C-alpha cells in the first residue's frame, strides 16, 4: 500500500515577532512570531528548497511525478511543477501537475499522488506544497499567516507511513477567498465561517473517518489537524475529544504561522519527524471542504532538515516596514534597470537552463577540472566537448572573495556579491550571499546554496541559486 517514504520542508529564515504588528497599528499582534519569506523568496523558491530538502534524504532515483500545491503560485498561466522539477534536477520524463485554488490543495495533491502510486501509474511522486498568502495590512490575517513549504515523497516501497483510510468532503462556501483580481485574503464574519466552514466540515470528516475505521479518538497517537488560528484549532481539538496535551500535533502558530495550502503538510512532516513504528496519525485539512486520512507508521521516515531543522534556524526581521516591503505591499524606491533586462529573456534562459536552474557545472572527463558556468572547452587541458555535467548545489562551499556592494541595487543593500569556492573540485561560482548579516561575512565563511528570485526582467520571474551562511545540517 502506498504511503509517505521521505519528508522535507522549507521555512524562511526570517521571523517577525508579532509585537511588530501591535507596534505598527496599536492593536492586534498575538503571541510568538511568524515566518516571512525574504525579499528574494516567494512561493516557488520555498517550494524548490523544500523539494531539494526531501531529495537530499530520498535521492532522485525512481521519482516519476511531481505534484505541486499552492494558492499563491507566481504564474497564472505557466506550470509551477515543471520549474520545481527542473530546479530539483529531476529527470524531465516525469508527470507534473499543479493543484491550486484551495487551502486544501496540499492534501488534494497528496491524495492524487497516493491514487497514482496505488494504481501503479507512478512509483514515487514528489508532493510539494508552498504558500505565502497576504493579509490586508492591519488585518488579523497579516499577523496570523506565515510563509513556508513542505515536501514529501509518496512511494510504493520503503514506505514509512501507510495511508490506510481516507474521507473527503466538499463544501461550497465563501468563507475565505481571493478573487482573480485580489491580492489580499478576504473572509466573511468569523462566527459563520467557523461554524459552517472549518469546524463543522473538518469535524464531520474526522468523525466519518474514525467511524469507518472503527476507531475512537483515544486510538490516535497524534492528531495532525489543520487550523486557521489557535482559537478555532483548540476548539476543534476539544470538540473531537483529543487530549490537547498528549495527542495533538503543534499547529506552529507561534513559530511559523498559518502557511495556507502548505500548512497541513508542514504539520504532517513535523509529525512524521517524531513518529515511530506503530504510531497511528490522523491528518485533517480544511479548505472548501475537508480531507481526513489515517496514517499507520511503519518506520521512521527519511528526512531532510525538515520542519524542526528549519524552525531552529532563524533570524529576526528587524521591522514591520521591511515585512511590507519584502511582500511587495509597499512600493520602494525604484532602482536603475538591470542591464540584463534590456536584452535577456526566454530563449537564453531556456538555452542555459542546465547551468542556471539546475546549477550544473562541467567536470572535465580528462583532467577533472570543474567549472561553472559549463565550459565546452576545458580551461586547463582544452579537452573539447568532453565533460560530464554535475549538480553543484548539493555540496557546500566557502566564501573565496566577497564585497558589500551599495551600487548593485535591489531591495536590500548592500548586495553581498561573492565568489564561492565549492567543495566540488574547488569550482568557483559567482554568487550573491543572502540571509546574512553583511557585517558577519569573511573570507572562508561556509555557505550553502538556496534557490531565490533574482529579478523581473522580460516580464518574467527570473530564478537562480544564491548562497547563504551554512546552517547546521539536520
Amino acid at each position: 500500500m502506498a504511503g509517505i517514504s521521505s519528508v522535507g520542508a522549507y521555512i524562511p529564515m526570517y521571523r517577525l515577532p508579532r509585537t511588530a504588528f501591535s507596534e505598527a497599528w496599536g492593536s492586534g499582534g498575538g503571541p510568538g512570531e511568524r515566518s516571512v519569506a525574504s525579499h528574494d523568496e516567494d512561493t516557488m523558491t520555498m517550494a524548490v528548497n523544500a523539494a531539494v530538502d526531501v531529495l537530499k534524504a530520498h535521492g532522485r532515483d525512481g521519482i516519476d511525478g511531481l505534484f505541486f500545491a499552492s494558492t499563491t503560485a507566481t504564474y497564472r498561466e505557466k506550470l509551477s511543477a515543471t520549474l520545481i522539477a527542473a530546479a530539483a534536477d529531476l529527470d524531465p520524463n516525469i508527470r507534473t501537475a499543479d493543484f491550486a485554488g484551495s487551502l486544501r490543495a496540499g492534501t488534494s495533491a497528496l491524495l492524487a499522488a497516493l491514487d497514482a502510486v496505488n494504481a501503479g501509474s507512478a512509483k514515487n511522486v514528489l508532493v510539494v506544497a508552498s504558500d505565502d498568502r497576504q493579509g490586508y495590512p492591519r488585518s488579523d490575517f497579516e499577523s496570523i499567516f506565515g510563509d513556508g513549504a513542505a515536501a514529501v515523497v509518496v512511494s510504493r516501497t520503503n514506505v514509512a507511513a501507510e495511508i490506510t483510510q481516507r474521507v473527503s468532503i466538499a463544501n461550497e462556501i465563501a468563507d475565505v477567498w481571493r478573487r482573480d483580481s485580489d491580492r489580499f485574503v478576504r473572509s466573511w464574519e468569523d462566527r459563520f465561517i467557523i461554524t459552517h466552514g472549518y469546524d463543522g466540515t473538518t469535524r464531520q470528516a474526522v468523525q466519518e473517518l474514525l467511524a469507518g475505521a472503527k476507531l475512537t479518538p483515544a486510538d490516535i497517537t497524534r492528531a495532525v489537524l489543520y487550523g486557521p488560528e489557535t482559537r478555532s484549532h483548540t476548539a476543534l481539538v476539544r470538540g473531537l475529544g483529543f487530549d490537547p496535551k498528549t495527542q495533538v500535533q503543534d499547529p506552529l502558530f507561534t513559530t511559523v504561522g498559518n502557511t495556507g495550502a502548505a500548512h497541513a503538510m508542514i504539520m504532517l512532516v513535523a509529525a512524521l519527524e517524531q513518529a515511530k513504528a506503530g504510531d497511528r496519525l490522523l491528518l485533517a485539512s480544511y479548505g472548501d471542504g475537508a480531507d481526513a486520512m489515517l496514517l499507520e507508521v511503519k518506520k521512521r521516515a527519511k528526512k531532510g532538515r525538515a520542519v524542526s531543522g528549519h524552525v531552529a534556524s532563524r533570524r529576526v526581521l528587524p521591522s514591520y516596514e521591511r515585512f511590507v516591503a519584502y511582500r511587495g505591499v509597499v512600493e520602494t524606491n525604484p532602482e536603475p534597470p538591470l542591464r540584463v533586462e534590456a536584452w535577456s529573456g526566454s530563449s537564453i534562459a531556456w538555452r542555459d537552463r542546465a547551468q542556471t536552474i539546475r546549477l550544473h557545472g562541467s567536470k572535465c572527463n580528462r583532467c577533472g577540472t570543474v567549472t561553472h558556468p559549463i565550459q565546452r572547452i576545458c580551461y586547463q587541458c582544452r579537452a573539447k566537448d568532453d565533460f560530464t555535467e554535475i549538480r553543484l548545489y548539493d555540496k557546500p562551499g566557502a566564501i573565496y572573495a566577497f564585497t558589500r556592494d551599495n551600487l548593485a541595487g535591489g531591495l536590500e543593500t548592500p548586495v553581498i556579491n561573492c565568489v564561492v569556492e565549492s567543495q566540488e573540485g574547488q569550482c568557483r561560482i559567482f554568487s550573491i550571499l543572502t540571509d546574512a548579516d553583511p557585517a558577519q561575512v569573511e573570507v572562508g565563511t561556509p555557505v550553502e546554496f538556496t534557490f531565490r528570485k533574482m529579478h523581473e526582467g522580460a516580464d518574467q520571474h527570473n530564478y537562480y541559486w544564491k548562497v547563504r551562511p551554512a546552517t547546521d545540517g539536520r
Partner: protein
Amino acid sequence: MGTIKDKVAIIGMGCTKFGERWDSGPEDLIIEAAYEAFEDAGIAPDDIEAAWVGTLRSGEAGAIVADALKIKNIPITRVENWCATGHEALRNAVFGVASGMYDIAMAIGYEKLKDTGFGGLGVGRGSNPVLQARATAPSYFSFIANRYFHTYGIDDDEGKELLARIAVKNHHNGTMSPKAHFQKEITVEQVLKAPIIAWPLGLFDCCPTTDGAAAAIICRADLAKNFRADPVYIKGIGFSVDSMLPMTRPGFDYLGFEANREAARQAYEQAGIRDPRKELDLAVVHDCFTITELVIYEDLGFTERGHAPEEIRAGTFTLEGELPVNTDGGLKSFGHPVGASGLRTTYEIYHQLQGRAGPRQVKDAKLGLCHTLGGPPQVACVTVLGTDPPR
C-alpha cells in the same frame, strides 16, 4: 611575434575637457577632440586616410565619426574592447599605418556616459538573465582588494589607508590637469570617511563617471618630422585578452591580472625594456579603482608581487617619486569615459615627452608607458612611447 617599434609616430593629439558634459552630445565631443588633434598635427580633416573609433556603447559603426566631422569615403572602423577600447582604436590605426596602406590615420575614442540617468556603468554583466545579474565593476575589483588584503595579512584599516594614499596622489596630480574631471585636493581622512560603494572601496577609491573624447593623428615614422619637430614614436604595443570570467576560472588568485603581465611583457620586449622601473620616466595606468593601480604596480613590474604596499608608503609613484604614475590624475581624477581613456593616457604621455605638461611636467621625460585594463578583468593594453628617433 614581430615588433612595432619605431614604425609609426604620433604627430598630433586632442582631448576634450573631461567631466559632466551635460551640454555636449557624442558628436560635440568627437569634434572637440578631433579638431584639437588636426590643429596640433597641422593637418586638415581630408588628410586623414583611415580612422578607427572606439566607444563602448555611445554609438555604433564608423559613421558616427563621418557624420560628426563630415569626413567621407574613407574607411572608418568602430572598435570595442571594454575599457581598453581607446587603446584598441590607437593600436588598429598604428597597425594600419605600419602596414604601408596609409600614411596618415586617426584614432579617436569617446564615451557619453552621463545620459543614462544613473552613476556607474550599470548593474549586471553578460547576456544570461541571472548568472551575473547584480555584478558591478566595483564588485569585481573589490574582490581583488578583499583577496589582496586577506592573502598578505593586511587588516581592513591598513588596507583602506594604503588605497587612500593612491587616491590622494592622483587627486593631487589632477589639480595640475586643467582638462581633468576634478581639480581638487583630498585628504586620506576624507577618503576613509567617504561612503562605501563596494566594500572596501569607498567613493574616492572609484573613478568617476565621465564624458569625454581624445584623438591621435598617426603617421609613418619616416614622415613624422615633416609635420612637427617633436613627434612621439611608438616603441611597443602589447595586448592580451584573458578570460571574461576570471572569477570562474579555476585557480585564479585575484591578486592581479595575467593580461596585464602579458601585455607588459609584449610591450617591453618590443621596446627593449629590461627594467621598467629604471628605464621608464613615467607611466599612466588604469586606476579605475585604487586597488587596480596597486596591483598594476606589481603586474607591470614596477615592483615585485606583494611589495606594492611598501612602495606606496615610500612614495615611489608620486610626482616627485622614483617612477611617477598617473601624472595627469589618472582615471581617478581625470575621469573615465571608457572609449576615450586609452587615448587620454596616450595624450598625457605624448605631452610629457614633448615637455608640454605644465606644472606636472616630469623632468627630462623620454620614455613613457600607458596602460588600460578592461573588465571584468582581463583585457589589457600596454603601450610604450618614446622621443628617441628611429635608428
